[in-house]
């Protein structure tokens, strides 16, 4: 492929260029296990990144559907959860998607909205504070502190240099701590990195 506007399929496309390996890819059982084990976790991570749970759920569903459509090469990517998360994130942040949703019926919703139980106060406060941060800082914080990725892995997933990731983490932590009235508001170096 010469271009991929989202870059979200880059890993799969790279894999596509390799010789076909007999028996590669996820079968139905493996995919279902992967989906069941990681769906809720990824929705939570994406919710923290974009601040909208319904949108997060919708985008993660769509990302899993795309993952299944690429299943023949999915296991060779090595990090299917990262692929789903990246794809879902890019779907979610695109304004065009909101435009599409506004201008057409929700024809690809896999299930209707259901009433949900309310989240706890800590979660609400944290999500509200995260929503105040610039998107890039928010994403870096979630990937590093919630997805437990190293700085290098965050850099790889976001396509930003490691130095940029460290800066986003430092500023993001400081801002988030201040918003939560956390005394630990002084900028500091990146963890795990």
């Amino acid at each position, binding site marked *: *492929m*010469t*271009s*991929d*506007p*989202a870059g*979200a*399929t880059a890993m799969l*496309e790279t894999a*596509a260029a390799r010789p*076909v390996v007999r028996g590669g890819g996820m079968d*139905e059982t493996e*995919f*279902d296990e992967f989906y069941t084990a990681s769906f*809720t*976790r990824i*929705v*939570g991570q994406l919710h923290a990144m974009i*601040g909208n*749970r319904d949108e997060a*759920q919708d985008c993660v569903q*769509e990302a899993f*559907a*795309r993952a*299944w*459509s690429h*299943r023949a090469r999915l296991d060779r990517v090595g990090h299917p959860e990262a692929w789903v998360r990246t*794809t879902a994130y*890019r779907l979610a*942040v*695109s*304004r*065009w998607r*909101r*435009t*599409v949703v*506004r*201008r*057409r019926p929700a024809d690809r919703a*896999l299930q209707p909205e259901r*009433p*949900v*139980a*309310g*989240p*706890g106060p*800590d*979660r609400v406060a*944290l*999500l509200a504070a995260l*929503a105040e941060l*610039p*998107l890039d800082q928010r994403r870096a914080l*979630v990937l590093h*502190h*919630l997805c437990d990725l190293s700085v290098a892995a965050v850099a790889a997933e976001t396509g930003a240099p490691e130095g940029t990731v460290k800066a986003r983490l430092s500023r993001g932590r400081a801002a*988030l*701590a201040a918003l939560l009235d956390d005394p630990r508001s002084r900028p500091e170096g990146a*963890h*795990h990195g």
Partner: protein
Amino acid sequence: MADLLDALRTPEPGLTLPPADEVRRRGDRLRRRRRTWQVAGAAAAVAVVVGGGALLGAGDTTPRDLPVTRPSTTPPISTAVPSGLPITSGWPDPGGDGSIRVGRTPALGDIPYCGRTAYPVVEQADRLTARYEAPAGFRTREVTTYVDVATARRALTTFRTAAGRCQGAQEGPTATRYRISPVPVGDESFAVLASPEEAKAIGIESIVVARIGNALMVSTHSGEGAAGQVEQQANADARDLAPVARFLSGREDTPSSDVLTLDGAGDLRLGTNRDDLVATGQLTVVTPVAHAACDGLVVNRWGGLENEVDGFVSHRYGLAAVFARPGVTRTPKGIRVGSSEAELRAAYPTAEDASGGRVRLTDPNHPGRNITFTVEHGKVTGFVAALDNQDCYD
């Protein structure tokens, strides 16, 4: 500080897991769409040639009976949107997960500003639409015609008035600011620039509205840019629309680079090997088929395709075939998908009838190549420039 987000580690309350089989079914649909041409194999390759209207949505290919236009002060055009209109002109490749659809069903729906509908308000005579979806951008174009120039002017004025009176709107958590900006395309035009009030927010939309005689073009473009980029985006869109406007006004044909000849399409010359083709950056090799003799390709400047290809690269013979893209390509003598058989015969009197209702054009000065037209019900429905010995389809 590492425990800062620990409150989010517990599962989302009330979150239900959609059934895995539903997700897989949607994935299968995506996969089928992506693989249609591949699965169908050689038969599909011919279908791509035959199905010039395959880009059009189901039921979209039948021309309507339309009233004849009244004389107008600007270059006269019919109320029927002309065949071969390059409506997707300038659109980039949407990538593997994206798509471009062309048809006659509305692509935009209502466009309101501050609760007031700006478009469509005035009754339309005919319409051609295009829809571009990709993870990083969403675009639509609608070309509509009206019974006369005055009606088209009224449609444009209604749009501009509604947009101009609305300074902004709140869309969920995002406050959007609207403003009108001039853009140079068509007989009269403007752009509506929508951008977030919040400096940190991303997401812009530009809508270019242009009138050409009794036709109105409405082009929308939503992307992930910042507020400072929206005017630049609108200007770029206006430039991309110029070929459509010129075509509508009858002042200019499609660019010469979109001419399909016995040599191929511009720099994409039949017989060129795959590596040299890829090095031109002008095409995208799509969904290589394991063990197949050929790969599919999409010509980048013609825009992306969802389930089809623009041609094949033979592993043995190089560029083996380039199909005409409806609305984009023509022959040197102006034959397009949609031209009449009479026009084809007049342009190429030496072309010979071939099997399956096809008409085959050869030239002793271009040995080993041919252009084969598929004619159905008196219309050219597709054509392909190909090597005589291509090994990609029957």
